[in-house]
């Protein structure tokens, strides 16, 4: 059927994109002058024996073999979840370092982005439906917060709610003396640490969703099918959601797919300001320390997550828009 064909084509497209990204990830550091091993070794300022050099090279996956055989080894390692050894966390493995950080980011920034999208979209629907009412006050207020640079919001909220009022912890993802796990104490600590970073993300991004949805709603509200829905004597809520908002949602979903791509990269500022132990914070440290293997691993994870997010949004789109299924 057309839907299934469409889906297969999308999945094939993402598979090819993922392959290209992974290959680039392999090629770029190898085409650059110098090698990660040199970076590590340069920190020891030449006070290393040849045996140590070989050991470091072996751990970082640098060899003198042909590019092709290196490529196969790279894939083999990748499929075993082996991304090499981190320089700054030496001799910690990149996959472990990322594995510890990625969940903080996915949960914090992912949930904050989702909440912002859902709340902004719903408010946009209401703002359009009840235009001229007091809800119009939402527009300038939210626009103000989206116009202010994000780091400024983050710093101000940190100093006001964290330092001055002391309502929320100012650094980290949880109280350091706690064990990471499913204990109630840990979870409540993690939650209170996440409030400020999450709120700053929501406050600074909600206006985009709200305005986008409101404008699309204003367009669909003037469509004939909305007039017909009213003429049919449907309840106002049904007309608003099932007819106007349902159609206005489609372009906003594409915007959401794009924004998912910025989750991880956008997390750098958030996590740096709040010293949050996520991927952005790791990337920041990796850059400071010239930790190429870690950077490479993080870029790979970012790429794959963006592709996965887009695939999921594509699936939603297929379910939501019957016209897509046909054009394929």
């Amino acid at each position, binding site marked *: 059927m057309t839907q299934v064909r469409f889906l297969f084509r999308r999945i094939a497209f993402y598979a090819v994109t993922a392959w290209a990204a992974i290959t680039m990830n392999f090629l770029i550091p190898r085409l650059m002058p110098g090698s990660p091993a040199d970076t590590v070794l340069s920190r020891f300022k030449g006070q290393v024996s040849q045996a140590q050099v070989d050991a470091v090279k072996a751990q970082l996956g640098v060899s003198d073999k042909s590019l092709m055989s290196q490529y196969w080894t790279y894939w083999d390692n990748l499929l075993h979840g082996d991304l090499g050894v981190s320089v700054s966390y030496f001799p910690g493995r990149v996959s472990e370092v990322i594995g510890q950080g990625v969940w903080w980011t996915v949960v914090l920034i992912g949930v904050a982005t989702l909440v912002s999208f859902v709340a902004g979209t719903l408010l946009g629907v209401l703002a359009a439906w009840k235009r001229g009412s007091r809800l119009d006050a939402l527009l300038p207020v939210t626009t103000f917060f989206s116009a202010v640079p994000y780091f400024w919001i983050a710093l101000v909220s940190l100093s006001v709610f964290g330092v001055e009022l002391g309502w929320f912890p100012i650094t980290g993802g949880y109280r350091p003396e706690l064990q990471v796990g499913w204990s109630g104490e840990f979870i409540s600590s993690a939650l209170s640490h996440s409030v400020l970073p999450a709120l700053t993300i929501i406050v600074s991004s909600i206006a985009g969703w709200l305005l986008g949805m409101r404008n699309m709603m204003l367009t669909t509200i003037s469509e004939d099918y909305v007039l*017909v*829905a*009213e*003429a*049919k*004597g449907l309840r106002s809520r049904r007309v608003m959601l*099932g007819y106007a908002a349902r159609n206005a949602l489609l372009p906003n979903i594409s915007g959401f797919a794009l924004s998912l791509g910025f989750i991880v990269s956008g997390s750098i500022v958030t996590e740096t300001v709040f010293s949050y132990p996520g991927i952005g914070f790791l990337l920041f440290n990796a850059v400071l320390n010239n930790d190429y293997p870690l950077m490479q691993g993080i870029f790979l994870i970012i790429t794959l997550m963006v592709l996965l997010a887009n695939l999921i949004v594509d699936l939603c789109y297929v379910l*939501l828009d*019957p*016209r897509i299924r046909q054009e394929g």
Partner: protein
Amino acid sequence: MSPVASAVGAPLLEIRGLTVDYGEGPGAVHAVDNVDLVLHRSETLGLAGESGSGKSTLAHAVTRLLRPPGTITGGQVLYHRREGKDAAGHVSDGPARSGPVNVLDMTRPELRAFRWEEIAIVFQSAMNALNPVHTVLAQIADTLKAHRPGITRAECRERAAHLLTTVGVPAARMSAYAHELSGGMRQRVMIAMALALDPEILVLDEPTTALDVVVQREVLAELVRLREEFGFSVLFITHDLSLLLEVADRVAIMYAGRVIESAPAEEVYRDPVHPYTRGLVASFPPLRGPRRELAGIGGSPPDLRALPPGCAFSPRCRHAFDRCTRDLPLLRRPAGAPERLVACHLDDPNGSADDER
């Protein structure tokens, strides 16, 4: 729609002094101005006039579907409910309520119950009248569910299948989306949807304008047949007077937001009185009878923001005399034509403007 079916009954919908403005103050567009119109039971009333004469505005105002900046600034829309039907349109056992209801005074719940149950509309641009993300069935079903709480899915399905076959669309198309249907099909689906609750009145706002001539004919024939089958009354809006003379029992002509002539379709065609109507009738080839010379109407429609004093048509009227640019002609019944109303100073026996309606 055919002479056979013109066993016209009592008034069903009475529009009295309806006035609609777009905007306020000096810049307001007076799109409908003091219109009186009566639709009788089982009647097909045609409403014709140039583009911009206020036909759609009138239809929207009657069903209270006007959108800002459109506002109803005066008048009444009286609906004479069928004996024994209560406000929600359901047949009740209690004593029949007497007297008509004013649609313009209805509360929101009353209005919701009234819409589609009593008056269904097929809009001018049916191409976009179907929600692109729901199937035909879903859109018929939500109408049924809104007005018949407790109806089952199977019943909705059955009703949808019946309605679609009635308008000549295969029942299997109920699971189609709008983009999978041709223009003619969409229009038929809209008509099927309009009939879902067996309404008393069907408002057709240029139902065939977007279709090609062949499909136009088919849809019209279908409408004529359906009217005979279901017995609803029709308000048929179009700028194509020749079409109306075929399908309508009575025709009202609008010019610049006012009704300027109304008469049985036959009489309008045979003996138009108002110079504007005469111009309209002369501007299309006769359907039967001898050929005659075609003539358009010179000039262009007036600016509704600043109508000329007196008769709005006077600047374009070859017969205009001084009184036409001074007094607004009101609808009156010319001598010897009991079925006809004209708003024109020509042949007016009274020297002064009279109030007789």
